């Protein structure tokens, strides 16, 4: 039978027998079946089939199944009544699955945090260090401005900040923001020191991380020369012209007071120029006294600590590592005083002669300056095409750049000669104590609680920062990848659903 010879296809006859047709259509087929023997045969075939399938019977349901309705409702499904009252949307999950999902969720969160937190910490440390360097530069510029205004460098860090009342004055020049003037900014502690006797002439600024683990890992320092140091190593040639000039003046001033050797550049040319560096390792009996003496020596010898790190591990000796800068003439006396602090365990002295290097630099500088003068003379006196004029100007600019670079190199070189470097390691002579006073239980509990709260807060903060930093990106990727993945998942589930019908 086919639809070309019959009004109703077999499939529709089947639907009629299943009661799936609209009443009008069903009535039409019923009428047709009375007249068409072929269609009646098809219908009877379906009926026979249905009768055959009905012979596949299953046994009666076991009586034991009835216990479902005889069980108290609280035994299963957490009880229907209590379950309804809870209104939980997770009720369809068994407690075990709920625990699995919760643990997986927490695990995923922790994993995400473990991956993200170190990067976050590193980026925060880098940001803090960058901020510290920027702050030191700001302070250098502000110090020069202060000196130009009041004739001397600021006596304290607070003097950089805003005045407590009225207009800016010596006590508050309003050159930096109040946060920086307070000495703590972006995880760094700033220590400004104007030396006694040379208050108007020199200063040093140190920037030390408040927490070596989380706020920063490098110590920065600078002085009136404008050169920045990170852990005692020069950071790069940032030395604004005004600062360089003033630094030159400072050095001259120091020399005039007999602190620095030599008088000027020409004087340096008379004798060898030696950049001296000493490495000293000292074992002291009393660490605190040694530390205090170190500070006193530095103050007395007009030196400063470019970097300083103290470690005080529990149950072992304390140690100090510092990179000190002292005026070269004061080096011998400083070393003697340092050696008197305790037993010298190691000493290395190096002296790099930079006379030739300095002479070359001075000669090249002089040549360049003369070239610049000649070029300026050419520009001033000669006439020519515009192109030629432009070429001369370009040449002047190039020579000017070289001159400035050489001047900076010269000053750095002179600074290395003027100030000797002492790498000092001060270790405590550790005596194991028989009756080391252990912290009380209460104190240990208190410390643990404080650490715990701090860790929790830091973790939370790190998590919030991570979410703030990466959240929008995650949402974006979730939208870009999650929606197609979800659609694919639905399609897969559907296919799986159909596939699973294949049976076990």
């Amino acid at each position: 039978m086919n639809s070309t010879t019959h009004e109703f296809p077999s499939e529709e006859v089947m639907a009629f027998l299943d009661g799936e047709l609209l009443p009008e259509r069903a009535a039409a087929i019923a009428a047709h079946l009375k007249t068409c023997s072929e269609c009646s045969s098809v219908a009877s075939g379906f009926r026979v089939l249905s009768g055959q399938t009905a012979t596949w019977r299953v046994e009666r349901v076991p009586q034991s199944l009835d216990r479902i309705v005889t069980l108290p409702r609280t035994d299963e499904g957490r009880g229907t009544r209590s379950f309804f009252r809870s209104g939980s949307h997770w009720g369809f999950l068994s407690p075990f699955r709920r625990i699995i999902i919760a643990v997986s969720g927490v695990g995923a969160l922790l994993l995400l945090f473990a991956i993200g937190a170190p990067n976050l910490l590193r980026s925060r440390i880098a940001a803090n260090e960058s901020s510290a360097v920027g702050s030191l530069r700001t302070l250098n510029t502000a110090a020069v401005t202060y000196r130009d205004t009041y004739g001397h460098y600021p006596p304290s860090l607070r003097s950089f900040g805003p005045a407590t009342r009225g207009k800016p004055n010596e006590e508050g020049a309003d050159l930096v923001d109040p946060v920086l003037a307070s000495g703590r900014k972006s995880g760094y502690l700033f220590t400004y020191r104007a030396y006694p006797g040379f208050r108007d002439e020199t200063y040093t600024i140190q920037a030390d991380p408040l927490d070596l683990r989380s706020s920063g890992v490098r110590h920065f320092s600078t002085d009136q020369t404008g050169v920045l140091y990170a852990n005692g190593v020069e950071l790069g040639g940032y030395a604004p012209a005004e600062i360089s000039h003033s630094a030159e003046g400072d050095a001259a001033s120091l020399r005039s007071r007999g602190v620095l050797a030599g008088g000027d550049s020409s004087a340096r040319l008379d004798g060898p120029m030696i950049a001296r560096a000493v490495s000293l390792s000292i074992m002291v009996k009393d660490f605190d006294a040694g530390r205090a003496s170190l500070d006193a020596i530095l103050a007395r010898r007009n030196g400063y600590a470019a970097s300083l790190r103290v470690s005080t591990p529990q149950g072992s000796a304390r140690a100090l590592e510092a990179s000190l800068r002292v005026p070269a003439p004061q080096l011998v006396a400083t070393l003697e005083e340092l050696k008197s602090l305790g037993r010298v365990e190691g000493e290395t002295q190096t002296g790099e002669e930079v006379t030739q290097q300095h002479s070359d630099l001075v000669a090249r500088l002089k040549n360049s300056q003369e070239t610049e003068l000649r070029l300026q003379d050419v520009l001033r006196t000669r006439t020519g095409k515009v192109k030629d004029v432009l070429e001369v100007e370009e040449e002047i600019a190039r020579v000017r750049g070289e001159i400035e670079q050489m001047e900076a190199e010269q000053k750095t070189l002179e600074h290395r000669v003027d100030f000797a470097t002492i790498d000092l390691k001060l270790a405590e002579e550790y005596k194991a104590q028989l009756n080391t006073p252990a912290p009380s239980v209460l104190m240990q509990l208190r410390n643990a609680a404080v650490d715990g709260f701090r860790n929790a807060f830091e973790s939370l903060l790190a998590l919030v920062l991570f979410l703030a930093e990466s959240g929008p990106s995650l949402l974006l990727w979730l939208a870009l990848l999650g929606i197609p993945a979800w659609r694919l998942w639905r399609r897969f589930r559907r296919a799986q659903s159909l596939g699973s019908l294949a049976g076990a």
Partner: protein
Amino acid sequence: MQDALPAFVLNSETLPRKPMSEAPANQTESSPQAGPQGQARGLSDERLMLAFTQGSSEAFTELFQRYKQPVYGFFCRRVSNPANAEELTQETFFALLRAASRYEPRALFRTYLYAIGFKILRAHRRKTAFRAAFLGQRNSVPDASKHDATESGLWVRHAVEKLEPVDREIVMLREFEQLSYVEIADLLQLPLNTVRSRLFRARTALRELLEPTQQETTRNKP
């Protein structure tokens, strides 16, 4: 239990549940689904389920009495072991208990119940496949004698098993669970026309598979 149903509630009483071997069902004829539970006896499945969600254990008992045999039959025809079928039937009703608070009468209760049954069946098959693959536990050999009392029934079972999986499921849902085309489409997430055409194809194939049996039976008759 006597609360009025919302307007959109489907009512299973209005749907036919008769096999094809009987006369085509009248669309408006109500089917007798009476149970033994007093007040609940004359109510539709959906009304009973709503009453159950409001705390009527009597309603649940009535639903259980109505569907315990169909659900048990559903599993018996799909798993190898009657004990498993009993266990899965029990799980289905427990799932119904647990999910009762979230029940919304947007579809027939029967469809809802069989959807739960399908999910549980799928989970069972996954576990069985996993055990077979990783733990070396084989599926128990079905004991046909427990399922089928007649030789004809056994032939039907074998013939049905030879059908394509989706076709087999459609034909079984129609023939044994007496679900309408719409309900089957909902359950299997297939278009309605696909269900109809696949059912036709499955029945045609099934008839061909059963024809030799029929002829043999006819020959054996005196």
